[in-house]
């Protein structure tokens, strides 16, 4: 190919690539790309809504209000239908609250599928125990169970927030892990 022609062709191609790259990166930055986003892309209007507060007060009074993205929509539906036997406890709510909270959790968890990025796919779509997901097991394989179960400050793998200091905000990366009485993982 003639040198001038190929330089023009290549120049146009590289120019187009750089233009689209710069605009893509600029859009990501403008959309809050420089804020520390969790693996759960979050903070929509719905998360600040009345049902969100209801969820935090009703469910969060006994345990951490798990980020809605931790289960699939059908997982939440199954879980919320069985509150009278909630992992061995009776956690029944009045039907209006139950309805509102279910709707909220289903809505948030179906908004994006970003959590599959880290957690992989659930063993089945309606799984209600996140601790049984293959990716959960894989990422926690290095933590001996006795370290948590004999630990008064943790007691169980289901107490995310005991070690993941920012769990309620949806941050589960290693930098924010501190197993009480044991060690920081980022040291």
């Amino acid at each position: 190919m003639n040198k001038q022609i190929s330089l023009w062709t290549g120049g146009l191609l590289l120019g187009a690539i750089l233009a689209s790259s710069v605009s893509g990166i600029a859009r990501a930055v403008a959309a809050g790309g420089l804020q520390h986003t969790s693996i759960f892309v979050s903070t929509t209007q719905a998360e600040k809504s009345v049902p969100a507060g209801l969820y935090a007060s009703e469910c969060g009074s006994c345990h951490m209000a798990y980020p809605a993205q931790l289960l699939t929509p059908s997982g939440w539906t199954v879980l919320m239908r069985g509150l009278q036997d909630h992992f061995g406890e009776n956690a029944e709510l009045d039907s209006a609250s139950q309805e509102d909270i279910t709707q909220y959790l289903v809505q948030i968890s179906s908004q994006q599928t970003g959590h599959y990025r880290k957690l992989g796919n659930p063993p089945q779509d309606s799984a209600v125990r996140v601790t049984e997901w293959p990716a959960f097991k894989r990422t926690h394989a290095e933590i001996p169970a006795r370290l948590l179960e004999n630990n008064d400050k943790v007691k169980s793998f289901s107490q995310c927030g005991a070690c993941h200091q920012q769990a309620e905000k949806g941050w589960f990366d290693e930098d924010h892990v501190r197993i009480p009485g044991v060690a920081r993982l980022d040291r």
Partner: protein
Amino acid sequence: MSNQTDTPSTVKVWDPLVRIFHWSLVVTFFLAFITEDDWMDLHVQAGYAVALLIGFRLVWGVIGTRYARFSQFVKAPSAVFKYLGQMLSLKVPHYLGHNPAAAAMIVSLIVSIIMVSFTGMAIIAAQGQGPLAGTLFAGFNPEWMEEIHEFFANFTLLLVILHVAGVVVSSLLEGENLVRAMINGRKKYHSDGVDQ
């Protein structure tokens, strides 16, 4: 005319597109590397930029200017090992373009970055996002893809470190600032160069 009596100076070797490509890749790769888990949108955009730049380089390696073409500089492994041996004995033949070891580094970097790009797009394809969404690659196990993605991202960083070390060593052996050559495109002319 007068040039022939002047002391041999520098000649244009790297065309502008090669140089713009190179430094754009440096910026976008590191942007993607540091944003990894924490700034996902930005990470994905930087990753697309890296992938597109590599795509450009593959095209330019075929239709580009003389010293940009793979056929000009990619050599058989035997030639690479021979050149590395010569580096150890501190006596290397002059190449105006990429030397055989540098060529092997370029090929390694391109292959490694292709692996990172492909697995990255396969991970998000599993969530129905990105250019591979809806293709058979979306069915690849995203956890495996993520492991491979992280491995090759770190491997690419290792290659980058070796690449910079190679540039420093070659600059010393050749008595020429090769980083500057990748900025202004010019290299010293040696009458005994083996590839001109």
